[in-house]
């Protein structure tokens, strides 16, 4: 999934690097406004969670497997800014410490998965939530929809980048059809898993789900005798 060195030419890589740096800079400020001095440990732990979640593979067909990208999942669980920050940190660590995704392609990877994946996913989630009935049960459904949209959206932006700075002479239409077609299938897996995970968290700790704020309602404190 991670774009390696040499896939896109140097100018495109540098340009996406600038976009990614600007995006991460804004996300840093917004996340700090949301989490204040809890930012470092909370974002760090959520990033570790996203990394662990990405270790789960699911079969996509033809003997290959995809793995959870987690952009929409992180956005729904901790909010889009913190989510974008977490995904970007995951990509940074994977690139610097695990050689997963090229260092020159880091900007591209952060732009695709950390920015496009998270914000398109979150936008679709918000839209779906506005249409669906205002209740807690709508949150997982909207999250699944957001996840489904986010994966082909990232693939579409990749096709555009490849048309601009690709290092191979493949017709743009072909790249687009292959990338988006393939990622629609991956998006289905992403959607199902994201929806189920969000529904599991909503069932146990709805107060932790950023996307469910205002829907969880106040649970009255029950006091009374317990008859055992």
């Amino acid at each position, binding site marked *: *999934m*991670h774009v*390696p*060195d*040499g*896939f896109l*030419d*140097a100018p495109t*890589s540098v340009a996406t690097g600038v976009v990614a740096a600007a995006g991460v*800079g804004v996300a*840093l400020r917004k996340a700090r406004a949301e989490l204040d*001095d*809890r*930012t*470092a*440990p*909370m*974002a*760090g*732990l*959520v*990033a*570790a*969670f996203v*990394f*662990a*979640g990405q*270790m*789960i*593979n*699911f*079969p996509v067909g033809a003997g290959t*497997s995809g793995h959870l990208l987690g952009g929409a999942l992180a956005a729904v669980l901790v909010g889009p800014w913190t989510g974008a*920050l977490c995904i970007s*940190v*995951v990509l940074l*660590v994977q*690139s*610097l*410490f*695990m*050689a997963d995704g*090229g*260092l*020159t392609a880091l900007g591209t990877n952060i732009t695709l998965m950390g920015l496009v994946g998270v914000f398109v996913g979150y936008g679709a989630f918000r839209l779906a939530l506005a249409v669906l009935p205002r209740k807690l049960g709508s949150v997982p459904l909207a999250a699944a929809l957001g996840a489904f949209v986010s994966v082909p959206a990232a693939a579409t932006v990749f096709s555009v980048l490849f048309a601009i700075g690709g*290092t*191979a*002479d*493949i*017709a743009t239409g072909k790249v687009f059809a292959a990338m988006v077609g393939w990622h629609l299938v991956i998006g289905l*897996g992403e959607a*199902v*898993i994201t929806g*189920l*995970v*969000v529904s*599991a*968290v909503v069932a*146990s700790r709805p107060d*932790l789900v950023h996307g469910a704020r205002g829907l969880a309602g106040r649970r009255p404190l029950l006091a009374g005798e317990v008859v055992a």
Partner: protein
Amino acid sequence: MGAGHGHRLHFHGHSVVHRAPAHLKILLLLGFVLTVVATPREWYPVFGAYLAVLLGVVLLAQVPLGYLLPRMVVEVPFLVFAALMPLVAEGPRVVVPVGGWELSLSESGLLGAWGLVAKGTLGVLASLTLAATTEPADVLRGLQRLRMPDLLVQIMGFMIRYLDVVTSDLGRMVTAMRSRGVDPRSPRHWPALARTLGALFVRSYERGERVHLAMLSRGYDGKLPEAVQ
């Protein structure tokens, strides 16, 4: 915690490369991969020179190649893509006989595939060399010296510190699932897997809250004290 706090790729050593300041190594790596990516792929001998330089550094670092090569599997999906490229790319084609069949390959596709394989492989090997010769804490200090925002370095630090805790948490949950007859890969068992991931999120989030409180009680004011060597 039953988890080791070792670093998956680090290869312990005391060579010149191990001891070199991390920020220099990061800058050199970035310069190297940028140069490789910017080199026109028709300059075949230059890529040989790059590889020679890289192998020289690996030799100097005394990291066995047998240690690095198996870790290059991260590159495999893109090798598959590169292998497909001559088949789907446009432009004039050359016919290559392969065991009785005649394979029509695109010339520009072949060139593109070569560029991908050469540049991708050099990039992965160079990144692996940095990871193998530099402790994570040193990489973080290096990034700090390179003026990466302090908060970002802190988040990376926390992620790395708790990575093994969180992944082995998941590992134990998956073991528990398997011992009850669940196959985490099968879509039939996704609901169980998703509940596991949901629980992992709640655990990680709550661990973050506890870590934050523990830090506050030790006087955390938004900055981490300089790590003592």
